[in-house]
């Protein structure tokens, strides 16, 4: 009885796996085709050759890339590795998202990863300790994944909520407790706001989204959001939920709830319009808006030659075509690999991610925002230094 029962699911799983693999391959092929077709003007000559990127792909490469880290990049990594594998069939890419940013960097520093995906650039101490594996050249932080932090809410009867940065900071520090508070009413003239209590939903696990959001709040409203930015949510008394999906589910299921999440993972939840600049201008999230905000606010502050660590100055995001809370994630790799062949494969893959096609694939499949062309050119230049 038991044995027979055990048999059936197994058979199903096997079948399902086949179907899934076939689907993935078909999807990858479709991605490669559509992304090329949709961006012919961006990459001249791409329309008749699927492999052309900023640097042409060497399709004869073989090897296995072992990497891991940021779970925010997970969906994008799946799309990238599938698309890359369809073109360079001899390569296998294993990206372990279960490690998270911290674990990814730790494992990479220990020498077990070819590159790490991380929501934060290396700290000075980590940059120094990376020289043990990477040689005197140290390590490079390369921007790879751009999205936005969406402010999602569930307030029956209220749509099109607008929030200024000051109100946002007050809500998330629990200084504004009800939805009909004058601060919210001032941002939404004419809207009928209920007296429902506000339930603030945050991440209970350490997260790069929290780090990006707290950095934004602390930079834009330092007098209201006095807490230091970091991966752990700093204000006590909120409803902490595990993972971006936990926040989205809890906000959707509750009434009077508000929370933050990577925009690519909010599903059908309602996102608020956020104030940009100091005037009463509110913008809805768009991929284009995140890209524009990044282009306006990011400054490259290299910690070593070729490094592309970005410092975001949120006060520069003032144009109404920009979304004020961009979310950035990096790939981190050595300037000098122990094995030149491994360096070649890793460079090819990261070069693919840092190409306009790579960015378009992530945008299509993982809902991310494409990085601006200028920074992609810098990524390619930095990768050229890797050996």
């Amino acid at each position, binding site marked *: 009885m038991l044995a027979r029962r055990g048999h059936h699911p197994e058979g199903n799983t096997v079948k399902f796996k086949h179907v899934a693999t076939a689907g993935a391959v078909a999807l990858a092929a479709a991605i490669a085709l559509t992304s090329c077709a949709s961006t012919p003007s961006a990459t001249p000559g791409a329309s008749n050759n699927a492999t052309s990127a900023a640097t042409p792909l060497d399709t004869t490469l073989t090897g296995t890339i072992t990497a891991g880290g940021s*779970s925010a990049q997970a969906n994008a990594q799946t799309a990238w590795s599938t698309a890359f594998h369809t073109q360079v069939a001899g390569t296998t890419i294993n990206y372990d998202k*279960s*490690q*998270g*940013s*911290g*674990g990814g*960097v*730790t494992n990479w*520093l220990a020498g077990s990863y070819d590159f790490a995906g991380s929501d934060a650039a290396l700290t000075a*101490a*980590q940059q120094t300790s990376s020289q043990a594996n990477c040689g005197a050249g140290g390590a490079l932080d390369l921007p790879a994944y751009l999205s936005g932090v969406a402010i999602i809410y569930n307030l029956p009867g209220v749509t099109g909520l607008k929030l200024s940065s000051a109100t946002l900071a007050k809500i998330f520090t629990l200084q504004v407790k009800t939805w009909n508070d004058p601060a919210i009413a001032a941002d939404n003239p004419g809207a009928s706001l209920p007296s429902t*209590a506000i*339930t603030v*939903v945050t991440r*209970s*696990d*350490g*997260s*790069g989204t929290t780090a990006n959001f707290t950095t934004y709040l602390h930079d834009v409203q330092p007098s209201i959001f006095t807490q*230091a930015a*970091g*991966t*752990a949510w700093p204000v*006590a*008394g*909120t*409803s*902490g*939920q*595990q993972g971006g999906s*936990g926040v989205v*589910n*809890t906000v959707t*299921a*509750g*009434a*009077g*709830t508000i929370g933050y999440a990577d925009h690519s993972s909010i599903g059908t939840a309602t996102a608020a319009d956020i104030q940009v600049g100091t005037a009463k201008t509110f913008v809805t999230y768009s991929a284009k808006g995140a890209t524009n905000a990044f282009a306006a606010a990011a400054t490259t502050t290299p910690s070593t030659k070729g490094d592309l660590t970005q410092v975001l100055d949120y006060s520069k995001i003032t144009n109404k075509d920009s979304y004020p809370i961009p979310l950035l994630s990096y790939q981190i790799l050595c300037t000098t690999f122990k094995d030149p062949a491994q360096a070649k494969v890793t460079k090819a893959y990261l070069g693919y991610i840092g190409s306009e096609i790579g960015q378009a694939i992530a945008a299509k499949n993982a809902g991310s925002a494409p990085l601006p062309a200028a920074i992609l050119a810098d990524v390619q230049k930095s990768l050229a230094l890797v050996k």
Partner: protein
Amino acid sequence: MTTSEAVRSRGNAAGATGPRSPRGGAGQARLKSRPADRIFFGLSLGSAVLIVVILAAVATFLIVQSIPAITADWKTSPELSTGPTAGYSSFWSYVAPLIWGTVWVSAIALVIGAPIAIGIALFISHYAPRRLAGVLGYLIDLLAAVPSIVFGLWGIIVIRPLLLPLTDWLNQNLGWIPIFAGKPSTTGSTILAGGVVLAVMILPIISSISREIFLQTPRLHEEAALALGATKWEMIKLAVFPYARSGVVSATLLGLGRALGETMAIALIISPSIGFSLRILTEGQNAQTIAANIALNFQVADALQRKALIGTGLVLFVISLAVNIVARFIVSRTGKSGGPRRRVQLAPPEAASLFVANDPALSPVRGTSDKAEGASA
């Protein structure tokens, strides 16, 4: 079924600790030693050694990994003053509220789950028709096979909204009791919800061990109680409970051991904040457990922070080990000194004297057979 086997083998091991009967058996076999005997002895010895080695390896791993974080200066370390470990003066000030949270959540689960589990066990062993008992026992064992992530999702989707009205009612009417105080949760991610789900998760352990022990109550004791005019409930009170007391206690402790280490369900359901809090209905003042804290923060933790988290794991390991040792000790003590003897001592004096006086010639004989039965069962 597996649980009942486990119980039986545990009974065997416990009964045999004194005279070391397995070695004795091997000694006899050695006189006419055959290869098969030696091979099987070697295999079983190897398995026994392996489990000790694994346990020792886990303990060594935890200790070696956590020492740098335990001995570090938390106030000045640049790594420990950021991320999940920020704001604590030492390892102990970090782990103390987590220990409290772990014990508190497990205690809530035990208070909710243990009486129900024992009730189920009693129903199966003494009240239910034979057929129903079999089905019910099977279903309870099946509950143990449900992955904890499923319990976690069930908790989020079903239990959390289900408990919201109860949360409000308790807070409004019994809010003067500290554990029901505070601002009640609006999303339901409370310790109460976590405790209810955890209670369901520990049901099968407590229930199946208790069931086996209730079933082992010597038939004669039960019949004697009934013959003395006891009602069914009085019979259970006089004959079954005293006999099974230590077994039920240890079953409860094993359930506690499971609750202490539970990770995913707690991490998914409860909105945590590290601190000493009694409150079970609030959103932002729920004590955090060690296991959930590790699961939630391991991903972003850097090298030294990970060592700190592993250190909290070491503390949990020690707590679980202590709880399990106490549970085994209680089982082994009853097994060795014999359930029946304890029973006579613990049973109400009038019942014992009646039992002896009623048929002095018969009772010692039956007593011995009972004892043998108890030891072998």
